[in-house]
C-alpha cells in the first residue's frame, strides 16, 4: 500500500504561485497584468471569493476577472457576500462563472432575478452574512480570494482602514487552507498605518491608484423623514424601548429607525430615558446617530463597516467607536454580526412585506435583494445563555407558565413600517411574493428575511402588536391584522377579537401609549437635514455630494 500524500493542496498552491512567477516583482503585480495574473492562478471550477458586500467593493479585481480569457478560466463557483457591481454578474453571462453562493444583491436585485429565471446562474443558496462566512470554513472554502485594502507595504502587510468589513474572514479561510490571496490596494506605501492583515497571508498586491468603491448605504437624509415615520418611531420608543429597557441593540437601515435615532435627544430625553435605553450598539456609523452621541446617549458602538464621510468623526470619538492604534475605525463584519446575534437584546428594522403570521420578506417577484445580515440580527439565538432584563421579560411574556430558572429568554425582534409603504404599496399581504419566487425557481426554501417565530413586535402608525402575548395562530393573525390599518389585510380583521387583544395589551394604540399622533412633528427631530448633522458633528462629518443641498 502506497503512503498517502497529505500535501497535495500545498503542492497545488506552489504550482499556481510558480505560474504567476514572471508577472510579480516580489508580491507586487502591475495593474496592467492583473487579468494575466488571474488567468495564471485561477483553475477552471475553482471556488473564488471576489470581495464585495453592501459597502466596499474590490472593483479593480472585479473588472479584471470579467476580462479573463474564458477558454482558460471558466465554470467558477463564486462564493461572495455581495453581488453588487455589474461585473459580478457579467462573469455569469460569459461563462467565466457558473455557480453562485452569496448573501446580498441590493443594486443588482432585478438583474440577478432575470438571470436566475433565465438559467444563467446555478444558485447554491442565498445566505445571511454570518452563515456564508461559516461555510467558508466548512464546505465553501475559497481557492482564490480577491480582496480590497487601503494600502500595502512591500511585504504584503495590509491596512484595510475603516472599511475592514469582511476581509479578515475571507483571508483567514483562504490563506490557511492553501488558497491564494490577491489584494487590490489604493496605494503601496513604505509603512502601513496599522497591520489589519499580516503579509504572510497575502500572495499578490496590485496598486489600483484610486480608492476602492464604497457605497454610502447607511446614510439617511433627515430631510426625507415623514411625520408618519416619526409617529411610528415615537410608538416604538414608548412601547418597546422604554417598556423593556433595551440598552443593547441593532438598528436596520431605513427611515423609521433613522427617525428613532433622531428622537433620542429630544422625545426620548423628555421621557427621561437617557442612560436607560440605547446605550450599546452593533451598528454601522449611521450619521443620524450623531446627535444622540453628541448628547451623551451612547456608550459604545461596534461596526460591520464604516460609512462614507464619517471617518474623521469616528476617529475623533474613540470613546464610542472601536479604533486602531492609527486612530481610524476598525470594523469587522463577522464579529459585529456575531455581536448583533448574541449580545444584543433587540433588532428593529423595516421590511417590504409581512404576512398574516408575521413572516417578512424583502423579495418581490422581480427583485431578489438577498438577506445581508438582517436575519442574523433579527433572530432569536438558541445558544444564548446570559441573562438581561429585556431578554428575561420577553421570555416571560412568551411563556409565563414555565419555571423561571428553566425558561429561555427571548430576543426582541421588531418590524417597523407604515401600513402603506413606498408608492402606497401595502406592507401587509396574505401571501409573500417570496413564495411565488420559490415556486418559480424550484427553491427548497422561500427567501424569508425574518421568520414569524422570531418576530416579537410589529409597529405601524396604527400601534404596536406584541406577538409574544399571542397564545395561538388565530390571535397572532388578528394581532397582525389589528395594526395593518386600511390595507386589505387590516380591513379583514375581526373587530371584536382585535378589541379583546387590545384590552389584553397585545395591541396598543397610540392613545394607549399616551402618544398623540398630532405631536408627531418634524420639529421633534434633533436634526432636520444633512447639514444639521454636519453642525452636530462640529464639522467632522463630511457627507458625500449626493446628500448635500448646499
Amino acid at each position, binding site marked *: 500500500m502506497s503512503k498517502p500524500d497529505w500535501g497535495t493542496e500545498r503542492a497545488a498552491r506552489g504550482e499556481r504561485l510558480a505560474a504567476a512567477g514572471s508577472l510579480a516583482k516580489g508580491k507586487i503585480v502591475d495593474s496592467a497584468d492583473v487579468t494575466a495574473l488571474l488567468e495564471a492562478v485561477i483553475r477552471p471550477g475553482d471556488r473564488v471569493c471576489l470581495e464585495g458586500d453592501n459597502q466596499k467593493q474590490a472593483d479593480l479585481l472585479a473588472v479584471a476577472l470579467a476580462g479573463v480569457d474564458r477558454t482558460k478560466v471558466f465554470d467558477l463557483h463564486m462564493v461572495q457576500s455581495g453581488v453588487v457591481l455589474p461585473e459580478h454578474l457579467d462573469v455569469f453571462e460569459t461563462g467565466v462563472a457558473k455557480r453562485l453562493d452569496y448573501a446580498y444583491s441590493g443594486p443588482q436585485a432585478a438583474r440577478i432575478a432575470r438571470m436566475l429565471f433565465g438559467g444563467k446562474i446555478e444558485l447554491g443558496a442565498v445566505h445571511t452574512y454570518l452563515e456564508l462566512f461559516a461555510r467558508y470554513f466548512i464546505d465553501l472554502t475559497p481557492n482564490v480570494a480577491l480582496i480590497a485594502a487601503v494600502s500595502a507595504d512591500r511585504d504584503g502587510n495590509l491596512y484595510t482602514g475603516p472599511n475592514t468589513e469582511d476581509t479578515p474572514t475571507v483571508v483567514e479561510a483562504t490563506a490557511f487552507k492553501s488558497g491564494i490571496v490577491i489584494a487590490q490596494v489604493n496605494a503601496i506605501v513604505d509603512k502601513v498605518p496599522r497591520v489589519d492583515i499580516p503579509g504572510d497571508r497575502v500572495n499578490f498586491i496590485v496598486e489600483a491608484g484610486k480608492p476602492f468603491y464604497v457605497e454610502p448605504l447607511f446614510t439617511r437624509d433627515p430631510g426625507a423623514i415623514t411625520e408618519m415615520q416619526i409617529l411610528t418611531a415615537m410608538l416604538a420608543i414608548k412601547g418597546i424601548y422604554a417598556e423593556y429597557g433595551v440598552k443593547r441593540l441593532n438598528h436596520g437601515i431605513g427611515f423609521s429607525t433613522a427617525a428613532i435615532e433622531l428622537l433620542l435627544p429630544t422625545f426620548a430625553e423628555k421621557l427621561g430615558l437617557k442612560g436607560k435605553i440605547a446605550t450599546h450598539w452593533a451598528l454601522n456609523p449611521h450619521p443620524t446617530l450623531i*446627535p444622540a452621541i453628541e448628547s451623551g446617549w451612547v456608550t459604545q458602538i461596534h461596526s460591520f463597516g464604516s460609512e462614507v464621510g464619517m471617518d474623521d468623526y469616528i476617529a475623533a470619538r474613540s470613546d464610542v467607536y472601536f479604533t486602531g492604534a492609527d486612530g481610524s475605525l476598525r470594523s469587522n463584519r463577522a464579529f459585529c454580526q456575531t455581536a448583533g446575534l448574541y449580545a444584543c437584546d433587540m433588532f428593529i428594522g423595516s421590511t417590504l412585506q409581512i404576512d398574516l403570521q408575521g413572516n417578512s420578506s424583502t423579495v418581490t417577484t422581480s427583485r431578489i435583494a438577498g438577506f445581508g445580515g438582517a436575519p442574523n440580527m433579527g433572530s432569536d439565538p438558541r445558544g444564548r445563555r446570559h441573562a438581561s432584563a429585556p431578554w428575561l421579560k420577553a421570555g416571560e411574556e412568551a411563556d409565563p407558565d414555565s419555571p423561571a430558572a428553566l425558561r429561555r429568554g427571548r430576543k426582541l425582534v421588531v418590524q417597523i413600517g407604515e401600513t402603506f409603504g413606498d408608492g402606497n404599496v401595502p406592507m401587509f399581504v396574505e401571501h409573500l411574493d417570496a413564495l411565488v419566487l420559490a415556486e418559480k425557481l424550484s427553491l427548497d426554501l422561500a427567501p424569508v428575511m425574518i421568520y414569524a417565530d422570531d418576530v416579537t413586535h410589529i409597529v405601524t402608525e396604527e400601534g404596536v402588536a406584541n406577538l409574544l402575548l399571542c397564545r395561538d395562530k388565530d390571535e397572532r393573525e388578528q394581532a397582525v391584522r389589528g395594526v395593518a390599518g386600511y390595507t386589505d389585510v387590516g380591513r379583514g380583521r375581526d373587530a371584536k377579537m382585535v378589541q379583546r387583544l387590545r384590552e389584553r395589551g397585545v395591541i396598543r394604540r397610540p392613545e394607549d401609549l399616551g402618544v398623540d399622533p398630532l405631536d408627531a412633528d418634524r*420639529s421633534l427631530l*434633533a436634526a432636520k437635514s444633512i447639514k444639521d448633522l454636519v453642525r452636530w458633528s462640529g464639522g467632522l462629518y463630511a457627507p458625500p*455630494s449626493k446628500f*448635500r443641498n*448646499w
Partner: protein
Amino acid sequence: MTAPFLNDPAAVSWYEASARKRVVTLLDPGSFLEFIGPEQREMSPHLGIFDLPKQFDDGMIVGHGTLRSEKIFVAAQEGRFMGGAFGEVHGAKLTGLLRAALKADIQTVLILFDTGGVRLQEANAGELAIAEIMRALLEARAAGIRVVGLVGGRAGCYGGGGLISGCCSALVVSEQGRISVSGPEVIETNKGVEEFDSKDRALVWRTMGGKNRRLIGVADAFADDTVGSFRDATLALLEQPGRFDLDTLQAEQTRLEVRLERFGHCADAAEIWTALGIEDASAIPAMAAEDFVAIADRVQEASHDAR
C-alpha cells in the same frame, strides 16, 4: 448644541414650514386674512381626469395682512402639493391677487415661491396662467407697487416660477432655495450628464442654490433658513426706493450683458466666485449665513431694482 424644539414663530424653519405656516408667521401676528380659502373648495377642474388627488386651496394661498403695520397682499405656494406646480386655479388666484392690488390701496405684494413650474396635467392652462401672472405683475409694478419674491422651500423656484421671479422688484433667497428655469434633470436629459450631473447635489446647489443666486445678483437679499430672517430681509428691501422706468430697465440690460461677458466662460460657479474677488471660493457652500451675508454685501454688483 441643544436639541431645538421650534415653537417660536421667528425660529420656524422656512424650508420645513408649510405655505400656510410661512404666511402666518411671516406677517404681523394674527393679521392674515385669506381670500378664497380652502372652505370655498376652489379646486382644479383637471386633476380628477387623471384620478389625482385635489386640494381645497389648489396649493395656492392668497390674502392680506400687515407687515410691520403696513397693509400688504401675500401669496404662497404649497410645495408639498404637486411640487407647488402652477395649474389653472392655482395661477388664477395669483393673477387675481395682483390685479386686486391695483384697485386696493396696496403698496406691497409678497410672493412666497415654492414651485417646480407648470403642472403637466394642466399644461395649457398652467402656461397661460404664467403669462397672465407676468402681465398682471408688471402692470402692478408699473403702477408703483413693489412685488417681492421669497424663495427657500423644498421645490425651489423653477420653470414658469423662475420666469415670474425674474419679473419681481426684488428677491430674498436662502441657502436651501434654488432659482432657475430648467431643472437639473431636464438639463441632464437634454444636454447629457457631462453638461450637468443632476445627482451631484453639491453641483446643483452651487449652480442654482441661494448662495450663487445671491452672489451673481439674481437675488437681492440672503436669509438664513428662518421665517424671522426672511422677514428681516424683506423689511430691509422694502426700505429701499422702488423704481420701474426705462432707465432702470436699460441699466439692468447692460448689467446682464456685462455679467455674461465676465462669467459666460466659467465652467463652475466657484470660478465665478473667484472672479468676483472671493478669496476662498471653496469655503462658500459650507459658510454660515452671517459670514456669507458679509461677503455677498461686499462683492455684489450695483442693484438696479429692475427685476
